[in-house]
């Protein structure tokens, strides 16, 4: 039965598409998404047009939603062009129509108390962080942001971050803006200074692994939004799995589209992503590949 809490599938009109540094900022008219949305969820877009040879949807963190206004509800994403599908998206013009399914996946878990939180993002990984910081601030949490990228043009939302957080630190690997280095170079200091109880992270797998490690060292919880290739995005195909340790201590290959994309950082077996570690439920003995 269609539930009102579930994802919506709709043909959404393009309201605007703008360049932001190395990225594109796409706004789609998609009524009903805002009401269902929680930060950390994603949208899956069909690409290539009506005669497309590209069969699979592309997934993007939801950056922002609006529940009404002049154009009805909207949903916004930030994307980088990395292949055919995103190249097609980057050519959209207002009034074009895109089939979108949203919101999908499990959102960031919010703390019950008004604690201090660190939001750490790499590249377009900052996209979901602003909606998140909004909800955290609403709950009286203090928000501290650490945004990193390889270079300035790949940094998203540094200005917006100043409005969304008590403190903001920017790092770039080439030093073109902010501190030269990686987010994890500054994160320990941030955690110590702010006493953050929770670390929220979104970015490349390597960064997430490192952030989860730092959080653990500092006795903080971590909530990491992963990015695994997804064929369906809705939980039916089993392509998007990664090894995650359950409550029972058992490792399982878990679907990142419906049981993620947000996971507890201490639950994901980061260094085993891309393998089936020995001892995983149902794994051949010795794990796979050997």
């Amino acid at each position, binding site marked *: 039965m*269609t539930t009102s809490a579930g994802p919506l599938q709709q043909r959404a009109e393009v309201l605007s598409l703008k360049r932001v540094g190395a990225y594109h900022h796409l706004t789609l008219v998609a009524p009903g998404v805002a009401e269902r949305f929680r930060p950390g969820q994603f949208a899956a877009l069909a690409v290539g047009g009506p005669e497309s040879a590209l069969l699979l949807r592309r997934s993007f963190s939801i950056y922002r939603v609006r529940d009404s206004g002049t154009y009805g509800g909207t949903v916004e994403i930030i994307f980088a062009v990395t292949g055919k599908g995103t190249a097609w998206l980057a050519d959209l013009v207002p009034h074009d129509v895109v089939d979108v399914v949203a919101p999908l996946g499990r959102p960031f878990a919010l703390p019950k108390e008004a604690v201090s939180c660190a939001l750490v993002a790499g590249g377009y990984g900052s996209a979901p962080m602003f909606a998140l910081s909004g909800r955290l601030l609403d709950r009286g949490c203090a928000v501290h942001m650490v945004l990193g990228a390889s270079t300035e043009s790949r940094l998203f939302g540094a200005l917006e971050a100043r409005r969304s957080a008590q403190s903001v630190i920017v790092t770039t690997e080439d030093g073109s803006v902010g501190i030269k280095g990686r987010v994890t170079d500054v994160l320990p200091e941030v955690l110590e200074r702010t006493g953050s109880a929770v670390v929220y992270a979104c970015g490349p797998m390597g960064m997430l692994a490192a952030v989860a490690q730092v959080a653990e060292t500092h006795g903080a919880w971590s909530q990491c939004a992963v990015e695994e290739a997804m*064929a369906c995005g809705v*939980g039916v*195909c089993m392509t998007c*799995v990664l090894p995650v340790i359950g409550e029972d201590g058992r490792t399982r290959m878990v679907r990142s589209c419906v049981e993620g994309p947000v996971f507890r950082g201490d639950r994901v077996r980061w260094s085993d992503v891309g393998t089936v570690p020995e001892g995983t439920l149902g794994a051949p003995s010795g794990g796979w590949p050997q």
Partner: protein
Amino acid sequence: MSATTWSGQVPAALEEVDLRVDLAGMRLKNPVMTASGCAAAGRELDSFFDVTDIGAVVTKSVMLDPRSGNPTPRMAETPSGMLNSIGLQGPGIDSFLATDLPWLVSRKARAVVSIAGSSLGEYAELARRVGNSPGVSAVEVNISCPNVHNRGLVFACDPYQAAKVMAAVRRDVPRDVPVFAKLSADVTDLVTVAESVMAAGATGLAMINTLLGLSIDPVTLRPVLGGVTGGLSGPAIRPVALRCVWQVHQAMPDVPIIGIGGIRTGLDALEFMLAGASAVQVGTIIFHDPSAPIRIVTELRAELAARGFTSPSQVVGLAHTPTADSLAATDLEGLRSP
């Protein structure tokens, strides 16, 4: 007779079309099912459409024990298709019977349970467990998965081995529960495999499974998939799947066939039925459009009505009859898409 209805060419009203079908004794609301491995056990799709509104949910092939599946990446997009190497990840039969099946039953959905084994004994054991579970409308036997990390020939590629599996399964499934053998197109002589599993007791055939394929990553210069090769599915393989249905229906016109492979629209479903399928399964296109199964039900109704048919049974195998051929195509230009 259907050909007459057709040549009459009086479009039917949508309400006149009765989509119910009798598939090897199974009564279905309509001939559109989900394909195994593309709908899990139905639950996730229920937020996109009512899973009781389609013909049946075919569940992901279940094995005896829990199974982790292959390492990632498990997919690669290809032109109008995709490769997958899931490696039959699943919870194992105990968990399936305790959790997945009861949900389908409680929803009153038609459940077709797909089973996969790595030995005859496993198939027999699965057949026993599944066959005796209430709420199972039919059993589909996956003898053709090319992804499993078993470098021997898969059962489906050898008529003799395929028949042994079917005989073992048939023995342990109650008579009134139909058993479908799911065939692979990666064989030299499909009709022989089909004949052999039918002789071993299959009630009907489901075809086709994915084709064996490969894709190479332009960055790592290695195969994309963790499992190296994978199964090709989606619209790209539709012409091959249609040919398989055509060939087998031609050789064995009385065998119930479920057509599978790249079905995207109601018109595609109609093509499979014209080639000889009594029902169809919708797979990969669900990933593109999670409400595809119900959309295809609606579209199939419209395609039938536009051609003056009032029941799916009227079109099954019709493309084999020369009668349809004699129609002057010019009178029917209005039916050309779009």
